[in-house]
């Protein structure tokens, strides 16, 4: 039988496939936010950036027939939103969290407004690379059709880890995040460092959005993100501002998102709402296990408004 069912094996396979399919937006947003937060600022607006990125990528891909141009447009839109956030936060006595919430609402609202005519048309999608050529199990082959953006995201994580530790600009970002005074004493503009860090963060988040609309689920509509941007921002805290942990956490969230539907498909139907909530339960559990009243979170940049 060509369509041989894998039975219960589909659950681990779906979690594996889901980890690859669903994790990419989490990965890009959390890596972007990681850079921004390491420089001492929280950009909660990345949910809005993600949705804006998804919308602009879809629009540009539809108009130009080039999905890669769409990805670029999403990145640029994200960087502009990052610049807006950093710009407003550069003003004296402005709270970065409040600005982030405002930009989140602006981003989603603007994307819904501008994206109205894009719900119906079908845009060119990003291609997938077939890594499953070596086997002939259709389910596994489907799970191994991987998008380049995922691979880029996976490559950025160790690169960032390395860059934070060993490069000059990595040190600068960390200095701005740990002690603005020290950075100033070294003769660097803290605001400029944060502006760049927030723009890079926005750029990555925008690209995360383009994955949503151009690859998986693969079309633009208003429920597309359903809070993934916010989840990813929380994921950075969960990952202790460590890019490699961001990668693992994103994969875990992606896999957990696939768990609910996969269990139902093999006939485990009780409590599907509970399984659908798995990612959030996971977050809560780890937060509770690792929190301590005696110290601030390990790895938290000292300049962040939540730790200061």
């Amino acid at each position: 039988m060509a369509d041989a069912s894998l039975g219960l094996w589909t659950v681990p396979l779906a979690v594996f496939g889901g980890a690859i399919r669903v994790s990419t937006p989490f990965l890009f947003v959390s890596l972007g936010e990681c850079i921004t937060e390491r420089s001492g600022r929280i950009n909660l607006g990345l949910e809005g950036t993600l949705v804006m990125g998804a919308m602009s990528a879809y629009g540009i891909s539809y108009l130009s027939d080039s999905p890669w141009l769409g990805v670029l447009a999403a990145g640029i839109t994200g960087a502009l939103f990052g610049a807006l956030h950093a710009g407003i936060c550069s003003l004296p006595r402005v709270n970065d969290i409040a600005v982030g919430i405002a930009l989140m609402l602006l981003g989603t609202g603007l994307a819904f407004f501008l994206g109205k005519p894009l719900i119906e048309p079908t845009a060119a999608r990003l291609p997938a690379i077939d890594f499953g050529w070596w086997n002939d199990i259709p389910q596994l082959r489907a799970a191994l059709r991987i998008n380049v953006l995922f691979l880029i995201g996976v490559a950025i994580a160790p690169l960032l880890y390395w860059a934070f530790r060993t490069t000059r600009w990595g040190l600068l970002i960390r200095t701005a995040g740990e002690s603005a005074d020290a950075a100033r004493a070294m003769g660097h503009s803290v605001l400029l460092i944060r502006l760049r860090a927030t723009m890079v963060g926005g750029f990555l988040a925008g690209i995360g959005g383009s994955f949503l609309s151009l690859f998986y689920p693969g079309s633009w509509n208003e429920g597309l993100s359903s809070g993934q941007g916010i989840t990813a921002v929380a994921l950075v805290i969960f990952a202790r501002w460590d890019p490699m942990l961001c990668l693992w956490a994103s994969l875990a969230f992606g896999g957990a998102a696939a768990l609910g539907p996969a269990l139902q498909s093999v006939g485990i139907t009780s409590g599907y709402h509970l399984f659908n909530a798995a990612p959030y339960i996971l977050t809560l559990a780890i937060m509770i296990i690792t929190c301590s009243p005696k110290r601030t979170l390990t790895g938290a940049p000292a300049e962040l408004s939540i730790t200061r």
Partner: protein
Amino acid sequence: MDFGRISRRHLLQGSAALALGSTLGIRGAAAAETTVGFIYVGSRDDYGYNQAHAQGAAALKKLPGIKVVEEEKVPETDAVEKTIESMINLDGATLLFPTSFGYYNPHVVKMAGKFPKMHFEHCGGLWSDKDPKNAGSYFGYIDEAQYISGIVAGYSTKSGKLGFVAAKPIPQVLRNINAFTLGARLANPKATTQVIFTGDWSMPVKEAEATNSLIDQGVDVLTCHVDGPKTMVENAARRGAMVCGYHVNQSPLAPKAYLTGAEWNWEALYPKFVKMIVAGEAIPNFYRGGLKEEIVKVSPYGEMVSAEARKHADDVKAKFMSGEYTIFKGPLVDNKGKTVIASGTDRGQQDPELEKMDYLVEGVIGATA
């Protein structure tokens, strides 16, 4: 947003009044045509529920003397009351179509009491004797169309496994799942339908994951009951599975994978309603129907649908059209082995028992809770 809208309308009205000198003049001139207001809960080009209603509204726009005003993305809160008030007071609407299920109670009921001369036609079939007489609620037996889809799916599947991506286990959704499965088993008695509930009406990532999981299980024909079937249709077609659509015709999204689908036929019903009102006839407060009453329809068959499937589906459709066919008739067993409709009992479409459906029939893999 809401305040913005109202003040903008006030502004427009104010400037119009200034320009013409008298608001009375405008009202008098506007009375020559009937203004119909449409309120949607989502985006009207969602390839789904709202688009079906918008197609009905578009059919009204073609009628002479009818002006249509529309507003999208109105939540099921008192926001809909504000929208209704401004459509009546500022646009002069006399007939309103609040098209989402959750608008009815308390919002539409309240507004119908406040504006006794206006007509309200709510989609959802919720009117009861206690409600104002100028409020009506209509709905369609789309499970008849799902039954036809099921027959076509039953002939088309090679694995005998069908998939259903559903939002929530409420009676309307369960009726569709059950009708689809019963139709499929008419064609292929061994066919099963695997159902996955995503938990809400619009969850694109979950719907895509559900679609992939079903196909991984060997499912080769999928359908759905969510607000926007686009995600399911596109993702299933990419994996090489066949689909049956829902709400509207999604064949442009996947012409090679689209077998048929269960569609609303509001573009036939709404002009009928308006003509009844213009002619001075009363629309029944509780208005329902299926294929026969032209409230629902079946998408044209896709190329890959076999002649055998077409013939069987057309035969059953003809029986629905003449009103002599019942989907839910005894003996009917649910998927836990319990008899839910006793032998000899026919539950016709109007049967209130069907409105309380809380079971999945034999052949459905899944559970309601």
